[in-house]
């Protein structure tokens, strides 16, 4: 029974996630289009809403070149590794309390484990393997440079990312994402929500946000893909479905870090509840989705606004600014919590 419920949840989560990935690409093209005074996709369906489907079909029917000079096993495995690790972290992310369907009460989470945060961090950091292997096995100069840059950038910012979460862990005292969210319920003086960002973790939130942008290789940290110098970086030699997989992995990673930011800093699915019982059951999911949408919009907004860093600026920002800031935040949080206790 447990396995069957899990399987149903996995299929639903996978469909939702892939739809979200497809439509965040649409959203990005649309929003960036409007920022640049263009229309974005308009031809396929109303407001270009069927564009993701058309893109998917195109990826399927495109010629897939496997150049003869690549190291074939890794060349084929690399995009799959990227996608698997990008999608898997959603398995431990809760999207709401629990829900009753057909008399069965089940948590809105595929795997309710008590070390959820560690699993998400572990799985997302495996994503660097897909990129490194893709760049190396392609046997092309652009790919190798792109993957070297990506690996160095991702490992550098992973430290700041990990350190920024320690403040939250000190406050909540649990690795379980569900318990971390539960600890953020309620309000101060009746109107300020007790989210971690309002409990003194706003510096940590800033560090997390910067590090998350770098981890997902988004502008202003998109040096691994820098179109103007490296063509497309690690996926220069990829085409058709394999290219689409890298694309999917990138957007799935964006959604994962948005989920994590909402859960850890912005109170997860907490929000005002009203109306009849069925609405109260569904409202938390809507609040959570709203936060993720906000993050995706922020990603796109920043992409449409900021230029790209230089590589030495990127490295010194990570190592000389974010890292000491994260250490300072951690020590101050620890001292304040210790003084309060």
């Amino acid at each position, binding site marked *: 029974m*447990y396995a069957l419920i899990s399987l149903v949840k996995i299929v639903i989560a996978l469909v939702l996630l892939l739809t979200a990935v497809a439509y965040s690409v649409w959203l990005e093209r649309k929003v960036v289009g409007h920022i640049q005074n263009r229309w974005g996709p308009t031809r396929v369906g109303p407001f270009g809403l069927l564009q993701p489907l058309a893109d998917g079909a195109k990826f*399927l029917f495109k010629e897939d070149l496997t150049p003869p000079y690549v190291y074939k096993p890794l060349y084929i495995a690399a995009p799959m590794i990227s996608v698997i690790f990008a999608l898997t972290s959603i398995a431990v992310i809760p999207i709401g309390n629990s829900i009753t369907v057909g008399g069965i009460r089940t948590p809105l989470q595929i795997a309710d484990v008590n070390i959820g945060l560690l699993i998400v961090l572990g799985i997302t950091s495996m994503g660097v393997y897909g990129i490194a292997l893709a760049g190396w096995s392609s046997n092309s100069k652009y790919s190798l440079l792109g993957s070297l840059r990506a690996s160095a950038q991702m490992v550098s910012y992973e430290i700041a990312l990990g350190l920024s979460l*320690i403040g939250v862990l000190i406050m909540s005292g649990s690795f379980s994402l569900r318990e971390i969210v539960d600890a953020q319920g309620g309000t101060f003086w009746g109107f300020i929500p007790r989210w971690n960002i309002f409990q003194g973790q706003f510096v940590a939130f800033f560090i997390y946000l910067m590090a998350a942008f770098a981890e997902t290789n988004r502008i202003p940290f998109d040096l691994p893909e820098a179109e103007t110098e490296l063509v497309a970086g690690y996926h220069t030699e990829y085409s058709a479905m*394999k290219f689409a997989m890298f694309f999917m992995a990138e957007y799935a990673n964006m959604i994962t870090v948005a989920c994590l930011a909402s859960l850890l800093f912005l109170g997860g699915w907490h929000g005002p509840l009203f109306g009849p019982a069925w609405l109260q059951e569904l409202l938390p999911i809507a609040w959570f989705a709203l936060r993720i949408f906000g993050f995706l919009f922020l990603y796109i907004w920043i992409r449409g606004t900021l230029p790209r860093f230089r590589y030495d600026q990127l490295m010194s920002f990570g190592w000389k600014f974010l890292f000491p800031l994260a250490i300072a935040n951690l020590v101050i949080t620890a001292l304040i919590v210790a003084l309060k206790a």
Partner: protein
Amino acid sequence: MPQNYVPIFLFIALIGVLLPVTLLAAKLVRPDNPSKAKLMPYECGIDPIDSARGRYTVRYYIVAILFVVFDVETIFLFPWAVKFKALGAFGLLEMLIFLLILVVGYIWIWKKGALEWV
């Protein structure tokens, strides 16, 4: 509970099946007519010079070493942070000493120029 982890592996297995199936399905429907020009390594339309597996700067190597040092430290911090309230003043003092040693090392590598990219 151990059975809570089963769905994660189920999830990985399902994607692990889905992806090769997608690639095979694409193989059945897509055209396949490679030519010599299409199969050349992409180098902005110029014939490639030299092997792609050339030398690259040693900085990447230094970043990798620093990553190992500081990431292990973060792993130490995680369990400490979760049990922070239970460990009390002793735990706080211990970790402050640990961080102090680490920060001294950090200042040293900064002074040595390991964090400079150029």
